[in-house]
């Protein structure tokens, strides 16, 4: 068990990334009750946006100085794609039956993957992403790579900013009001269309930050990277209580740690030798989800979702 701190660190890093992506699912769901399955691809294009910024910067530009620009580039691309998707794919379907936008989201996800695959130079396979040169830092007995540190810092910082935005600003409160009851919010003079676009944009910005972290941590980005991660992040959002932003982050962390621990220790549990290791971690992650939903159907931090049938 002496590698426990390391496995916890692995799980937290993975979880921070899940959490950052899960914010996008939870915000959009909280406001328009749409599961935006294209969000994984919003994350993916953010990674390519950041990569593009890095590639066009002059050689010799240090990575540390490039990071803010890369984050910015990623955010710009992600937000542009997400708001365009909202405007042209989801808004026309807002009054359509719930399933129509859901299917649209899945279609959009495939379209975005194919567009990147087709038109981004050299994206037909995994594309190398810049990484910090430095060695791992030892913290409480765990080795943490610079890319991991980026994620461990970015996640809480982003959460604090988001918490402040949602609770303290006018737009943030408008957001809460729209989530509770869009019709009344509209009557109170809130521009709900603008609120919805903002929700998509914020989720996309968080996904872009996560994508930069993914690139730094894994040293590559690829056109398929959003699919599995998007699914995991969606799971995290449900686990934490979909509609609740803090729940999304908590759900991400719980899911990440559960996966790391399942990989590390499940095989040591007597009788479970065959069900441990990297190939079973997803099974355990979803088993955890089912158990949580059986005990607490509203998720860990369950949001009371206004019943609007």
């Amino acid at each position, binding site marked *: 068990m002496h590698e426990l701190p390391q*496995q916890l660190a*692995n799980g937290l890093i993975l979880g921070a990334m899940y959490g950052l992506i899960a914010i996008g699912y939870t915000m959009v769901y909280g406001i328009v009750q749409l599961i935006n399955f294209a969000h994984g691809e919003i994350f993916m294009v953010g990674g390519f946006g950041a990569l593009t910024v890095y590639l066009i910067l002059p050689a010799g530009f240090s990575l540390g100085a490039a990071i803010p620009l890369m984050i910015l580039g990623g955010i710009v691309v992600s937000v542009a794609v997400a708001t365009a998707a909202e405007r042209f794919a989801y808004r026309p379907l807002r009054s359509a039956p719930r399933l129509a936008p859901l299917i649209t989201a899945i279609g959009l996800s495939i379209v975005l993957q194919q567009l990147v695959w087709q038109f981004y130079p050299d994206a037909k396979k995994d594309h190398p992403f810049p990484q910090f040169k430095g060695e791992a830092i030892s913290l409480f007995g765990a080795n943490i790579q610079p890319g991991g540190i980026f994620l461990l810092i970015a996640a809480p910082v982003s959460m604090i900013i988001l918490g402040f935005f949602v609770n303290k600003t006018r737009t943030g409160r408008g957001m809460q009001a729209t989530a509770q009851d869009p019709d009344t919010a509209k009557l109170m003079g809130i521009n709900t269309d603008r609120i919805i676009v903002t929700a998509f944009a914020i989720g996309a910005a968080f996904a872009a930050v996560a994508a930069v972290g993914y690139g730094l941590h894994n040293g590559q980005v690829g056109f398929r990277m959003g699919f599995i991660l998007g699914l995991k992040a969606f799971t995290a959002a449900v686990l934490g209580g979909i509609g609740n932003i803090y729940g999304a982050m908590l759900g991400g962390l719980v899911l990440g740690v559960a996966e790391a621990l399942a990989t590390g220790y499940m095989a040591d549990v007597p009788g479970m030798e065959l069900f441990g290791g990297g190939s079973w971690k997803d099974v355990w992650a979803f088993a955890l989800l089912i158990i949580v939903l059986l005990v607490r159907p509203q998720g860990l931090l369950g949001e009371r979702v206004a019943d609007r049938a």
Partner: protein
Amino acid sequence: MSRKPRQGKDPFVRHRSLLILTTVLTTGALTLTACGSRDDKGGDGDKGGKTKVVIGVDSPTSGDLSALGLGIRNSADLAAKTANKNNTVPGVEFVTQPLDDQGQPNVGQQNAAKFISDKDVIGVVGPLNSSVSQSMQKPLNDAKLTQISPANTGTELTQGDGWKTGDKKRQFATFFRTATTDQVQGAFAAKYLKETAKIDQVYLIDDQKTYGAGLAASFKDQFTKLGGKVVGTDHVNPDDRDFNAVVTKVKSSGAKAVYYGGEYPAAGPLSQQLKDSGNKIPLMGGDGIYSADFLKLNKKAEGDLATSVGKPVESLDSAKKFIADYKSAGYKEAYEAYGGGTYDAAWSIVEAVKIAVADNGGKVPSDLRTKVLGAMSKVKFDGVTGPVSYDEFGDTTNTMMTAYQVEGGAWKPKFSEAYKPQS
């Protein structure tokens, strides 16, 4: 009577979603028809008095493994062009028809059906993945269409599931390969790691695919037979890129090396994260990681090992011409790990056609497919990778293997041997 454009905004808005939908549908339909029409013009059978003979090529030219797949496509094309230029078979014009299988078994099966339905196709080169081959073998066999894979190393593809217990049985009369089997490759890697690199403790990881799992199994078998110890086993998902939880386990297991059964898209990050964890041990893999892309995706590849089939193409006299021709043909992509094997596979079909035509008094026989299949056992020539011929299972008789190590940021050949596993 000019109608004012956008007079009143509403009709425009109302029709826009319809417009988008229509555009999408039209584009989709156009793409589909374009695909269909390209394959169906079978009318130009005689080209300048020559009979057109098509060699189907199936490999992943998109997706993760496209580096290897494009090398296969180009090398087969080069073989066909060389045969035409040298007029190897008088009266026959060779054409390749490359199809993309995306590394997916179901796509491979559709491609097989496409080849079968085109009567000009008399042989198929490919695919890259053993799992794809499993879905193509049966339909091609039913159609008596010869298939030669330059890369499939799954032992059971030729010898059946019973090969481990010595109960070898040929699976499909139409399946041949220029690559040696996983049994040979995994065992060769085990021998190299144990006897040349002097490593006794190995952590074994595979990606659960036909190729990866087969390689890992034959490695384990031979490594323990030689007295080595497998200190831990794990399986990963080939789509994962974060292996930190697994490498943490490797670190505490005391392994001196990791053997990975799988391909470079996952092996690259796995190897890097292994070293990132503060554990400076090499990762070894099979020909699936012997790619320049492995080095691009892995900033700490130095010291990693791989095995590949045949001698390094660059070191063989027979290959010098291939390399020069490949260069002068101006292909954009490198020939990669399977370039030489692919050329030999495609050339085997050329040779088989030559035999079939010669047996028919210099004329192209009407049932060329069956005649090509019948001629395969007689094919024997000096190819890019060495002497090429096929045994009673359709396996290559050339079991030459080479171990490579990353040195100075490039794969360097270390050791070659015609390997026979002791059973």
